[in-house]
């Protein structure tokens, strides 16, 4: 790596004061200093808090319907709005705010869990393929191709048809149908890394392949992949609504963004807020996580990059 400019490599050793803290804490500290991180965190905290306590605190049951007060618009819109329902009500008179935040809970659960499944399968398979190469690689990549070529909808019909469309089944379907992306990315980065000398050093120190993959490569390569997977959390939450659209979504009365959007779609012309609110919450959640993630990434790069 002789391209690295000696001017940069010869930085003075950081003062002992800085180095007394562990790297993770330094990254956290640096990230926490950025405005974006604070905005993101504040937003995320508000959403999290709302999702955690608002339904219980307000005492409003997300499944409690009031047919006579249905399709009330959000605050200050039209002339039927009421303080009791700040974001209006849905087609059977349930409070949109409480449904949105409870929906956020379930959708976030679905999004995060299915991305976790995706990451688990994708990263492990990709890492194994990239690390060992050769036949293992060919086999793993063709399995990936095969998975890629099965349309998600077929998988969804099959799996969700066999079991009732419960949340775990939906997580499984979404997770199973999206891992190839990560397998490919992971494979290519692991392939680049496995030739590096520190991997060899670890082998010579006696570390097993599993140990190298798990303790050296995954911690190194996972964070950027995690960051990119944030978009996928949102995508999964949207995919869940596609399943709802096909009648394969989470069954009522459990509110998820997916079924709120899918059901509210019919009312888009008259009651735009039903299908739109989850989208707004989704966008806010995504943006807040993205802001935090981006601040972390920058902090990581600063600490690791030394510049």
């Amino acid at each position, binding site marked *: 790596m002789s391209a690295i400019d000696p001017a940069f490599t010869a930085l003075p050793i950081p003062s002992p004061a800085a180095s007394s803290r562990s790297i993770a804490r330094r990254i956290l500290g640096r990230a926490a200093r950025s405005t974006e991180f604070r905005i993101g965190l504040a937003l995320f905290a508000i959403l999290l808090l709302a999702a955690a306590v608002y339904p219980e605190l307000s005492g409003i049951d997300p*499944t409690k*319907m009031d*047919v*006579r007060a*249905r*399709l009330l618009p959000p605050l200050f819109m039209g002339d039927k709005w009421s303080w009791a329902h700040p974001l209006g009500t849905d*087609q*059977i008179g349930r409070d949109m705010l409480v449904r949105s935040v409870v929906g956020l809970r379930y959708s976030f659960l679905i999004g995060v869990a299915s991305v976790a499944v995706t990451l688990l399968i994708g990263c492990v398979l990709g890492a194994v393929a990239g690390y060992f190469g050769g036949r293992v690689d060919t086999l793993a990549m063709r399995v990936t191709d095969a998975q890629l070529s099965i349309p998600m909808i077929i998988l969804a019909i099959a799996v969700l*048809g066999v079991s*009732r469309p419960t949340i775990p089944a939906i997580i499984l379907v979404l997770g199973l149908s999206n891992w190839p992306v990560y397998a490919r990315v992971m494979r290519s980065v692991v392939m680049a890394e496995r030739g590096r000398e520190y991997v060899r050093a670890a082998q010579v120190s006696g570390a097993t392949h599993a140990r190298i993959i798990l303790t050296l490569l995954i911690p190194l390569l996972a964070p950027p992949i995690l960051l990119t997977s944030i978009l996928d959390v949102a995508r999964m939450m949207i995919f869940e609504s596609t399943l709802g659209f*096909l*009648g*394969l979504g989470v*069954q*009522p*009365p459990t509110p998820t963004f997916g079924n709120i959007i899918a*059901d509210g*779609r*019919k*009312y*888009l*012309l*008259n*009651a735009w807020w039903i299908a739109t609110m989850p989208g707004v919450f989704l966008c806010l959640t995504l943006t807040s996580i993205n802001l935090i993630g981006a601040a972390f990434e920058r902090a990581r790069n600063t600490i690791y990059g030394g510049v």
Partner: protein
Amino acid sequence: MADMIDRRRILLGGAAVAGAGFVQINPDFLISSAYAQSGKEMVFLSAENITGNWDPTAHTTLSQKNIEGYVMGFLTRTPMKLEDPGAVVYELATDIKLLDPHRLQIKLRNDIVFHDGKPFKAEDVKATFEYGSKPDRPAQWYPGPSETLTIEMPDDYTVIVDTSKGGYPAHLFIFLASFLPIMSAKDVAGGPGGPLTQRLNGTGPFKFVEQRGNATILAAFDGYFRGKPAIPGISFNFVGDSTTRMLSLMNGQASIVERLEPEQVETVKGNPKLTTNEVVSVENKYLWFRCSKPPFNDPRVRLAACHAIDRSLILDLLGSAGHASANYVSPVKFGYVDLKNYPAFDPDKCQAMLAEAGFPKGAGLPPLEYITSVGFYPKTKEYGEVITSMLNDQGFKVSLTVLEPAAWNEQLYHRPGGGPGHMVDCGWSTGSPEPDLILRTHFHSSSHRICGVEDAEIDASLDKERNAATLEERKTILQTETMPLLASKVPALSLFTSVMIHAMQKDLTGLYIYPDGSIDASKPA
């Protein structure tokens, strides 16, 4: 699917003499001349797909019946208006007369030609009746198989239907005449798999041109006996999604769309270019109990469930898509009456019934599954959720399963040992005033259609009303015995009567729409 018209010989047996009350009005089948003058073809967006087999006796599909409504001729039409459900309007027939309980004489017009040029004669009616009543025809809505029928043709324009071999009353053909499309004897001679399946050939105002993907193309028929329609053609399209249909109407691509959501009615009303047509339909929506398995094999549990449901809330939810009714048939059907003992929302009675059945406050009841569909009828999922929560409020343990139509359809019907789940949502629509198309189909022990109820008392009452000698007598039995009996045993709960809502471009105002959804667009030029 929705339009499950009975295929069995429901009106079989029992002679009776009936004198039908014919109304000699010809509803003014108007459409605005503004639209007609524009010379545009009418684009109709249907919510339901068709079968692809053009033989009218091969299917029971409502959308295809609607197409037949444009293309085919009928002996009579039944406007089925709320104020007079039994009204009949002559079309191909000029007179229908019961000669004796087993002989019905039908006089025909003599100025009609089929679209392929063949003149319409008595042989066509004979061929239609004889072919349609064959036991292998899938859409079995004749009272008996062909061998029980004798059809005489005293002259080219008179038909006498003789049911004496079958032993059932001939008056059953009066209501049937209004929804049996008359086919050409030449086509019928081609037999199953012949020209009948390939295309439609009728005497209606529009002739069939071709099927182009999901669009059925019809063109105005020059030789229509009331004169060539002003609209040059109709394009009948299947578009599954209601929002899509609405958007299409709003941007002017569609002329008329069906099955509006009530909220969409608001939208249309706010749009100066559009108008709506609402008509109380022949279709009631039911909550079917699986009567052959616990706990709903106990009428008290069924009744408890019925008392737990506040139907006024469901109607609120449906808005203009629902019409309050308190009977097992639609108010536009023969024999309808608001039943005094129809179960109303009453938590106390519900609890009392539950306690009586041995499930005080629902304790001891198994978890129940309520199956409904989404995407076909308006608001099934919404009111399904409401009903689920109302039942749960009274101590039932109900979970709602929402299925897309194909899966729901597969789960719908009774099977030996009872069908899937414990309650199913489904509507029943028959394009005829005949009430037995519902009552007997569903509640007679021999049928087991959905609820699978077997009850000797109900059977006896159903037989009694069918065998009544006259329509008046039959009406009385229906209204005072059969229907109240059903309301006390509730093998199902009729929730409300659907309102068929169409929206159209304003220049189509006045188009006549029948309660089964078929449309008269035949205004002469």
